[in-house]
């Protein structure tokens, strides 16, 4: 007898594919997190331990090493630069891609061209974007720097990403709410400020987080456009070829912890927002 396709009805018995796919999912999780857990563990290696197991006298030595100003890299400075760049990139991405998402709600001449420009920018091999911008700055006699060429290079990645995410967010916006506001006499600005942005806020926060972390970890577009002052990923990139100590793992653990922290804060904010809304709906 032919088995049934799984449906939402929990009374139906689980088909065998549930267990097969469940096992696949579990293996994928091990595959995804296994190596990461290994380097987090190894970053607590003792001062005399190597880059593999076993761990000899666990310590925080390599975390202290990250803070020590080495000959090669100044990690705290690079970190603060990365944070500053990511904040600016995230803010710009949110404002510009929210506006872009709103623009695409109605047909306008050239919409197709803009869309293909966005897709092209998204699929363009990252290093080539940096290469082109580097050539451009050279051509016009400009010095590449953090908030000019590097920021621009990162925006060619975060903006298309942000716009596509906004499509998904805006798709679920019911225009009746905006029309209701218009009928009540709200100006276009008031509609954006008091209706559209508050309703889309969870999605907008998601875009902000994505843009921040994508910029914070970006290296391929940045490497040829950064000029003299390196960001954190570029310092890590430089360290890989020179240092083979557990310090690299400690650095990896720290920078991943920053990403996890940001993801956690964003999730917390979004969940609280949704809970409040549900609470308001009930009362």
């Amino acid at each position, binding site marked *: 007898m032919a088995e049934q396709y799984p449906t939402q009805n929990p009374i139906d018995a689980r088909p065998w594919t549930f267990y097969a796919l469940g096992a696949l999912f579990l293996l994928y999780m091990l595959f995804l997190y296994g*190596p990461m857990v290994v380097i987090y563990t190894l970053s607590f290696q003792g001062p005399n331990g190597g880059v593999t197991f076993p761990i000899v006298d666990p310590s925080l030595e390599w975390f202290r090493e990250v803070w020590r100003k080495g000959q090669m890299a100044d990690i705290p400075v690079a970190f603060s630069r990365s944070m500053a760049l990511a904040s600016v990139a995230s803010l710009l991405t949110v404002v510009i891609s929210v506006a872009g998402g709103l623009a695409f709600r109605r047909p306008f001449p050239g919409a197709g061209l803009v869309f293909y420009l966005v897709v092209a920018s998204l699929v363009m091999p990252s290093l080539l974007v940096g290469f082109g911008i580097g050539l451009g700055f050279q051509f016009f006699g400009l010095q590449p720097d953090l908030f000019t060429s590097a920021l621009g290079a990162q925006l060619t990645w975060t903006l298309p990403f942000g716009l596509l995410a906004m499509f998904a967010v805006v798709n679920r916006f019911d225009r009746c709410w905006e029309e209701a506001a218009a009928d009540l006499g709200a100006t276009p600005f008031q509609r954006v400020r008091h209706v559209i942005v508050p309703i889309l806020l969870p999605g907008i926060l998601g875009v902000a987080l994505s843009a921040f972390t994508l910029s914070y970890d970006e290296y391929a577009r940045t490497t040829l456009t950064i000029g003299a002052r390196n960001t954190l990923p570029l310092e890590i990139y430089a360290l890989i070829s020179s240092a083979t100590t557990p310090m690299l793992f400690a650095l990896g653990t720290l920078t991943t912890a920053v990403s996890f922290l940001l993801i956690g804060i964003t999730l917390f904010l979004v969940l609280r927002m949704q809970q409040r809304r549900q609470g308001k709906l009930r009362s």
Partner: protein
Amino acid sequence: MTGGARETHIGHGANVDAPAKLHEMPEAGVDRRSRLPAWVVSWLQILPLTAILLVMFALPTTLFLAVSFFDYDRTGIYPAFMLDNYREIFTSSSTLRVYGSTLKFTLIVWVITLFLGFNIAHFLIFHVLNGKIRIVLFLLCAVPFFTSAIIRTIAWIPFLGRTGAFNQALMGLHITTRPLDFLLFSDFSVVVAYVHLYTPLMIGPIANSLSKIDRSLIEAARDAGASRWQTMTNVVVPLSKTGIALGSILVMTQVMGDFFVVRQMSGGQSASIVSALSTEIQAMQHPPAAANAMILVVIVAIMVSCLMRVVDIRKELVK
């Protein structure tokens, strides 16, 4: 790939069509009080994005198209129109080998990520019935994408090395007596790192497509006597074409544009188009690098337009 937006999309399949219907009505009267025509408002809203992409993406791309025809020597580059840079690429067997190897990696990684991505997305959407658990499992898949790709790549080194965790585990369990050498600094480790980095790019779009499938279609197929396999091949797969195409575009272009993973995980034994190109850039050979870049852009453009022919991504995304 839509980050926070993706998770919340799950389970809202029924709402998706509503804005689309409104959209079909011209203008829906929303902007009737503003003095500007609606399309001008749209233009103003899209202007900053277009301007930045034109200056930071279209202009530089045009520039390296031009430079690919330039002449160069050790001290600089000179405007010219010559095809030597391209001729060198097509006549050098080592360059062609690099192109072949990049295409090989792209194909292998695409097949594996598609298999993993589709099955995992399918599991999450159709098999995990509890909405909260589904969101948690989704986040588990998505979170690593928002952490450093460099760190995720080098995380494989202490795991796969000769004295690494995996070999130690195998020997500890007496599965092998000596460490396996092929695990690290080989084509194998390059593929492993790619699959690790890019599978989330496949899961996201496919799950988004699957979540939009109207469940009543599946029940209808069942009522009409379709087996599970028939339902899968005739209903579910065709309806997730958009996600498959979008995920494929993202994975393929990421692999084709990579230079770090291939260098790091092959231990310098393999090269990719972009890693060869970055070596040329470091050697200040900008015109041949630009010619390589142009060819890569053409390959990527052909690939993406083929996939976009399969589905009208724009129509699917902008509803």
